[in-house]
């Protein structure tokens, strides 16, 4: 695993209205690693992810993807960069009006000047990688959630991207299917030598797939490290998140005083 940096975020700040979602986020991701971004709900994970893929522009700060400053690119240049990345969505985001095969082959049909027979072969290969060969003619509505996730993944890797982003890949899936997805992420990383950026808060996933982990809190990076370093972290908030305990520095319930006051008003 080389130390070449494929993604760099420098001091990203993003506000939605009067809510500051990203508050000086800085990260570096190396080529070929599986980088997990975790944090509580509302800490800015999904917003950060969308900055990395060029879907959102920050109010201040820079994002470098594969060496290019995303804010300086025009639409065509941004498209060229997007063709080198793939994204697996939380809701799998398959196109309901197309079959599985058409979904997976869409990026190829639009961006690559390949013969139909060649595209068919590539689709079969990608479906085989996710363990769903033979499903080409089904419609997404005929599939289970786990299968849709895997097809979404097949589509994300259809163009052999250098980086694949995963937004909550195991959300809502049963433990066995979640394990299958985790293994897939690791397999793809090894077989295709791609960099994986995974946003999740499934702790089991995090520790089984990650090369490095970043924990986010209130729009900033709390800590970055290998799984071992995170497990042994001295930071109480990190420990609370890892162990999943409701009590700790990260507050879920408001202070007791507030509650009494508001009840009595």
């Amino acid at each position, binding site marked *: 695993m080389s130390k070449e940096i494929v993604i760099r975020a420098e001091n990203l700040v993003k506000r939605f209205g009067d809510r500051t979602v990203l508050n000086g986020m800085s990260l570096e991701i190396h080529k070929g690693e599986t980088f997990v971004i975790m944090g509580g709900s509302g800490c800015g994970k999904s917003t950060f992810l969308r900055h990395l893929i060029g879907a959102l522009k920050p109010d201040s700060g820079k994002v470098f993807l594969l060496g290019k400053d995303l804010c300086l690119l025009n639409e065509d240049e941004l498209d060229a960069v997007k*063709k080198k990345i793939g*994204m697996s969505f939380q809701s799998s985001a398959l*196109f309901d009006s197309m079959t599985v095969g058409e979904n997976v082959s869409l990026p190829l049909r639009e961006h690559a000047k390949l013969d139909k027979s060649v595209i068919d072969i590539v689709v079969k290969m990608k479906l085989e990688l996710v363990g769903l060969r033979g499903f080409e003619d089904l419609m997404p509505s005929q599939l289970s959630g786990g299968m849709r996730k895997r097809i979404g993944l097949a589509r994300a890797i259809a163009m052999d991207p250098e980086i694949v982003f995963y937004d909550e890949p195991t959300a809502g899936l049963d433990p066995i299917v979640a394990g299958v997805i985790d293994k897939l992420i690791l397999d793809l990383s090894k077989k295709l030598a791609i960099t994986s950026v995974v946003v999740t808060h499934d702790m089991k996933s995090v520790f089984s797939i990650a090369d490095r982990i970043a924990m986010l809190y209130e729009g900033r990076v709390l800590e970055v490290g290998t799984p071992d370093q995170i497990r042994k972290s001295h930071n109480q908030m990190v420990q609370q998140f890892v162990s999943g305990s409701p009590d700790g520095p990260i507050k879920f319930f408001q202070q007791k005083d507030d509650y009494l006051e508001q009840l009595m008003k």
Partner: protein
Amino acid sequence: MNFIETIGSLIITTGRQTRNLLALFFDTIYWIVAGPFKNKFVKSGSIFSQMVFAGAGSLIIASFVALFTGIVIAMQSAYQLSRFGANIYIAPMVAVGLARELAPVLTALVVAGRVGAAITAELGTMKVTEQIEALETMALNPIRFLVVPRFLALLIMLPCLTILADLIGIFGGFLVGVFMLHLDPYRYVTFSFKFMLWKDVWTGLVKSVVFGITIAMVGCYTGLKTKGGAEGVGKSTTLSVVTSFILIILFDCLLTGLFYFTQK
């Protein structure tokens, strides 16, 4: 102060939405005109399937509305004209009234309710299930992919439906004239077209083109702007139909005035 604030914010919101709608319109035109040169035009397959949905699918309801509108105009005109023994004038009244006004407007309203709502619901559902975002992540422009085929389909199909509505409406009037009022069928048909000018027909078609553009733009815009899950889709769809209706009537008034005052 509150009342003025409300009016003010309403104007600002309407202004902003109109600007965004126009931006979408110009983007759509850009992809239609410039797309072929960049080798990035829309697949004809998707245009044709949209045309089938918008046009062929609306045939029955549009014909139904046209037929009964023709019948009703004929009966209402007969009510007055029979006093003057001038029943035969029902024929041109139905024909010209339909061609200039009723066929384009009623067909557009029917299509807005059927096709406009469907477009908004489909695009809205795609938006809330992250499918639009998926397209953008794959470097596929959603306007080129989703809006252009629907725009072209409505642009082509609405005038076709309007012509059909003209003819079926005239037939409706024919039924009343011949079978209720016992007018001579041959005379009815020739009298229908005797007072019709080409101007009557093409003004109606220009209106239907404008309405087609309106329905497509409003439908796509409200669909792509949907937020908030299933409830959001429902809200967008309602907004789409209501806005289309209002704009159709508004543009009808503007165009009618325009054609009237350029009559010399």
